[in-house]
């Protein structure tokens, strides 16, 4: 794990933010998805809307994350992914994700979540099989990374609601917009 000077560990971070009951969160999310389904009716539309909402959340969430966690600038995408998985997920959702399946260039990886507070007590009915219930999470990651100048594509590979054993998100870095800070070519 890359050394992070100064910032707190995931658990300490989570302990330092105010918390609410996860069930309230889960149920609120469920109510939101229900509303969307009733309004939009098309599952694809709902997926897109969830992603958009996640994107909006992500753009603001990243500010809070950077402010509270005190991490230094990540040197490359690998470090970024680690930070998201260990600190980001922990700080906001209280669960850690693991990062796996790096591809050869180091631009694409998977986040695996065994435990996902969004989906407690949820079961997908047959008419909604195409629904990506956790699409808001992919939007959040996309939005957050875009705010730190990384354009990404996020897709769901495994979904427990469809019968898989875990949640897996594949994040692919499509473009890194260069910034003022020196970008070290790390390998």
């Amino acid at each position, binding site marked *: 794990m890359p050394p992070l000077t100064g910032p707190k560990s995931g658990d300490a971070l989570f302990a330092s933010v*105010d*918390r609410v009951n996860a069930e309230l969160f889960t149920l609120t999310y469920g109510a939101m998805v229900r509303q969307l389904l009733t309004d939009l009716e098309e599952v694809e539309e709902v997926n897109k809307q969830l992603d958009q909402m996640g994107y909006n959340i992500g753009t603001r969430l990243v500010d809070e994350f950077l402010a509270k966690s005190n991490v230094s600038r990540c040197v490359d995408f690998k470090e970024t992914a680690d930070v998201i998985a260990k600190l980001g997920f922990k700080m906001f959702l209280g669960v850690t994700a693991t990062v796996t399946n790096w591809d050869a260039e180091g631009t694409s990886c998977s986040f695996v979540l065994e435990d996902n507070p969004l989906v407690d007590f949820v079961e997908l*009915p047959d008419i909604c099989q195409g629904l990506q219930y956790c699409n808001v999470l992919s939007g959040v990651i996309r939005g957050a990374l875009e705010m730190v100048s990384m354009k990404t594509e996020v897709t769901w590979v495994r979904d427990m609601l469809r019968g898989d054993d875990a949640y897996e998100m594949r994040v692919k870095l499509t473009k890194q917009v260069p910034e003022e800070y020196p970008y070290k070519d790390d390998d």
Partner: protein
Amino acid sequence: MIGVGKAKQYANVLDKPLSRGRQEVSLSAFAFLFSELVQYNQTQVDNIAELERRLEDAGYAVGARVLELLCHREKGNRRETRLLNILSFIHSTVWKVLFGKVADSLEKGTEHEDEYMISEKELLVNRFISVPKDMGAFNCGAFVAGIGVLENAGFPAVVTAHFVPIEGQQRPRTTILIKFAEEREARFG
């Protein structure tokens, strides 16, 4: 009706250890989610009353499930049938589970026989929402009001949320007004 089911195959819910029910997420995660919910609804409606109604609907769904959860977990599948009991149940247990503390106070209304009020100094959902001037009396507490736990417990009531300005405090207190329907009388004779 389109909707996501409340419970996974029952085996799973019962298998989960009780401690899982105390899991928490960060406040900001909830605040973000809630603000998105409100913003989305804003695009769908034309006026304040409808917005309140939609938030109430959402809160209502939450309340139905919360009630089931709590009854199962805390009370061993028994639900309160008496009025004062259900009110204090809401005031302490439900509030505690959802917001981490008991509600600030529970009072009986002075004007009408069947009115009660639960008030809270700083309602969680209102903490991060600032109401622009033109929205007037709009209150996100409508969401909480919608947590029509009462309705699901079999007590028909009209629940509304109000801002009550208090001397010496910056933000007005939020009060949830519960007005019971007359059927209630039949229950207690």
